[in-house]
């Protein structure tokens, strides 16, 4: 019979092996993307697939960058993502605060109605939203992507649920000291909501950074395109003609900010998932 410490060690080893294997499976597509960014067009299509390029084609990065203004796409994506993330944190926290703390007629019905908007599939909303943007004269502007993204029923719901868990006594004490509603929100609620802010912030950032469909509809000129739109500009009607090696090179370069953000915010991200019970 195995000793308890030996069997524990065995379980640990098995767990590590399993985790390493899972890690490899998860990271493999990413490594594949990086290696493919150095391949020739012919190597991409080779079967059985070759893992390592015969010769590292650094020129793929230069060629991709020269073919399309990825710096412009990058700035556009960054602008849209920052505005949407900050805006959504602000509107969702205000909405969440109102639904969690304020008393007004029809509050629950309004909240339910707001939540119900999550059930409507986006393609149904697409043409009405397009017409609204058109009537504002916002077609082919970044505003048309930013403004509809400033509000989120899901974000409001997340905020509300978190805020409902904050003890009312803190607010009561502030009220006795003469604090206004805005003061309560800004000085009491917001500081206590850092984890949920981090969670919503990261989810919104990632969602907006990768957003494709709505910008595709709204943006027409190359100078207003975002990164996901820019990446597909290499795709041709005949699959064999698509320069996948350049797409991979551009993808590698553009995925960097999101990785950096994840590394920086990893602690909050994990904490947020644990706090809210949400998975990406």
């Amino acid at each position, binding site marked *: 019979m195995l000793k308890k410490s030996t069997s524990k060690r065995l379980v640990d080893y098995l767990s590590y092996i399993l985790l390493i294997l899972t890690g490899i499976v998860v990271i493999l597509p990413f490594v594949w993307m990086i290696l493919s960014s150095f391949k020739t067009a012919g190597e991409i299509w080779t*079967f059985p697939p070759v893992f390592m390029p015969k010769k590292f084609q650094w020129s793929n990065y230069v060629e991709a960058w020269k073919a399309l203004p990825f710096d412009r796409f990058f700035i556009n994506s960054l602008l849209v993502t920052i505005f949407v993330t900050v805006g959504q944190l602000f509107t969702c926290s205000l909405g969440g605060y109102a639904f969690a703390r304020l008393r007004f007629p029809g509050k629950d019905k309004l909240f339910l109605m707001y939540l119900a908007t999550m059930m409507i599939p986006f393609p149904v909303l697409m043409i009405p939203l397009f017409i609204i943007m058109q009537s504002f004269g916002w077609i082919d502007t970044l505003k048309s992507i930013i403004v509809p993204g400033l509000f989120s029923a899901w974000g409001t719901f997340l905020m509300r649920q978190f805020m409902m868990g904050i003890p009312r006594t803190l607010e009561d004490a502030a009220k006795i000291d003469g604090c206004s509603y805005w003061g309560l929100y800004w000085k009491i609620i917001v500081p206590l909501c850092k984890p949920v802010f981090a969670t919503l912030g990261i989810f919104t950032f990632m969602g907006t950074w990768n957003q494709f469909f709505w910008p595709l509809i709204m943006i027409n000129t190359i100078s207003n395109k975002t990164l996901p739109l820019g990446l597909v500009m290499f795709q*041709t009607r005949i699959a*064999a*003609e698509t320069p996948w090696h350049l797409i991979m090179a551009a993808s590698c370069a553009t995925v960097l900010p999101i990785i950096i953000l994840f590394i920086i915010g990893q602690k909050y991200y994990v904490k947020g998932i644990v706090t809210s019970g949400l998975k990406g």
Partner: protein
Amino acid sequence: MIRRDFLKRLGQLGLGAYGMSFLRFCEKASKSISNEILPFDVKFPATDWTMGIVDPQISGTFKIMSWESAFQFEKWNLIINEFFRTYYPNIKVQLDWGISFANYNTKLPVLLAGGSPPDMIWMHDTRAKSFAAIDLLQELDPFLEFFKPDGWPDEYYPTQVESFKYSNKQYAFPYDYATGGLYINLDMYEKIDEELPTEDWTFDDLLRVGKKLTKGDRQFGLNLGSEASAGNQYWILRSFGGDWFNENLTESKFNLPETIEAYQWMTDLRWKHKVAPVPEITQGRPQPFVDGVVAINADLGAPAFGDLLEDKFNWTIAPSPKGPKGRFQFIGGSALSIPLKATHKHIAYELIRYILSKPENLEIIGKKGRMFVSRMSAYEYGLPQGRLAQKMKNYKKVFYDLARRDGVVVPYISKYQEWDDIYRRNMEMLYFGEELSAKKVCLKLHDATNRFLERTYLKKV
């Protein structure tokens, strides 16, 4: 005013504002729908490429939307910029390109339905009739009559002119011409001591050679594509004497013995004779010919393979075979269109005419493009150059002469996408080997197609 009254008033005000804006939108929409009259009042000096209807000093934005990719759009850009610089210098051109084909077909209907269409759009033969049938495209015949392009229509591929007609009216001006042929791995072929296929070969000849070229599941003699891909296999169907439906769209033809025979032949290649790769192999291997797994591969005449092959093996091209009812060759292509609600229709037509009938421009499109341009006399610009020309010495014969003679217009009906779903669902059973009897599948599809035709076309009659 108490708070409740205030909120009530605010709500009423909001609803009122929303109602007003909605009415304004409806008014705008109805105005633009009725704006279909095309005046041809010549008020300004005309040139070889402008009608003199629009003021050359006009300012504004001219919107173009295309599915061409970063490298493909270069040729169009050159020509479009030249046109506007010369004839309408104050017009700002907004180019929306680099949208993949699938995304293009998602975005375009939204723009057209949303009332914000571009002035000139790219149009595919599989979609043209669908858009024309719901009045989203401008009929080009008045323009073609008033300001006829050089050589129209006789010098343009008749199949391409026909492909973009709906109810006998022209809705798009074809710009390219893609046709099918056989790509042959010569390293494999030279070992079997057979002549290369000619246009007089039959499907039986091809099968005989395919059997000789097949070596278990390491090497397959033939790859003619999937029978689930309706348009691409239509030439085989017609070669056997089969069809999808009758001309009036009142009856399916999937119950014809010839139709069933064609599909049985395609299915048997894979499951009975085992000379074609099964889906398990082709799905994990997007280019089986390039990978050296297939000896004879049917594909389009675009020399795209040349770049991918990188001299991996010797290869060439040959014509596709003929069937019991004659020889038919796949034809496909794209065109330029004007949306019905476009703002600058006259300029759009002038631009299309300039791009596709000015000889210098045809040279640019042909040489920088991947296929033949739609004007037959400009075929030499579409011929492969250099190393590829050596590989494909009979390129002109296979992809130009024979295509002109035997090209078949695929009947992409106005509800083609809807019907294609029905077709695919049924034919995938043959392709994946879930059912090996083409008769069973064809009869099932026959019923489904008849129901579709009745629901879609007969009720309207």
